[in-house]
């Protein structure tokens, strides 16, 4: 049950869902949980960080758009 100012039809509208979040997955790289889109089985592009640690956001290797290696 939602309590929001956004109209329900806007929230649930799946038309032109060009950005599919199905492609993105959550992984942990260097101790930081993040959302990534896989490039191949070994690497992925960072979409956004989910960490609460502010210093993770200053780590240049984890900037959104950069490529990280998955193990």
């Amino acid at each position, binding site marked *: *049950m*939602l*309590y*929001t*100012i*956004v*109209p*329900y*039809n806007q*929230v*649930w*509208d*799946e038309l032109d*869902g060009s*950005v*599919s*979040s*199905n492609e993105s997955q959550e992984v942990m790289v*260097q*101790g930081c*949980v993040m959302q990534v889109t896989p490039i191949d089985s070994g*690497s992925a592009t960072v979409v956004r960080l*989910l960490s*609460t*640690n*502010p*210093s993770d956001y200053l780590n*240049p*290797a984890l900037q959104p758009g*950069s*490529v*990280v*290696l998955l193990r």
Partner: protein
Amino acid sequence: MELTQNTLESNQGNQEAQGQQQQQLANIRQLGQMNTPDGGSPFHVLSIIGQVEGHMILPPRNKTTKYEHVIPQLVAIEQNPKIHGLLVILNTVGGDIEAGLAISEMIKTMTKPTVSLVLGGGHSIGTPIAVAADYSFISETATMTIHPIRLTGLVIGVPQTYDYLDKMQDRVIRFIVDNSLVTDQDLREMMFRTGELVRDVGTVLIGDEAIHCGLIDELGGLGDAVARLNMFAANPGMAKANRRNAMNQGRQQQHPYVQPQQPYLNINTMHPAPGRYLASPPSYYNQGPGGV
């Protein structure tokens, strides 16, 4: 090209991380001590953005904050002795009631100091999250929308549905009233106010309006919020004690009827109890018009 460079860089980063790990292992073996990770921030930041997502996965076009991320993070922050406070940053349009209330309750019951900052918007279910912190800030331009829970587009035909909606609403109202200085009456009045058009009913509070009605503690920004956290971190116990005092004092000011009332007449002497009447009439009582 850029891609490969990035890959190389992150490769390098990875190697560095591995090197650090080996260094740490060596330290543990040789010195029996663990390296503390960086000199990082003593405060962690939780940003509640977009929709608060709970039991239902929202379509991908919604930007969401998921409770399965937030709740374990809160537990980790509570347990990690290196973290001395939590800054909650809100820019949310609302979302799942149960998830929102769960997050609010967790923030409220943390022993670490918590400060919330409403930036942009803290609408609907963002309100209980904002008031759950020990101290709350709102930026000058931020807005909070107080409105009733409704099922837009559906006609409520069954009485049970209406009762359920009402109960959900009461849960939210109770949490907000218990954790801020706003009164139940004022909150309901704002929620069902007609005229200020937020799709028929509701109130938009901008910046200091949220402070005047008692919802938020102070107008401020990032610097103020971090300064407040620093203050709380330096004086352990201050955050919670302050909160309790503020709640008690605020309640007494706004609801005189909850003050412990003395009996009207003393049973033994049959005199009015002290404090119930002024010792002498106030000076203006004896004055004529014009104060002469």
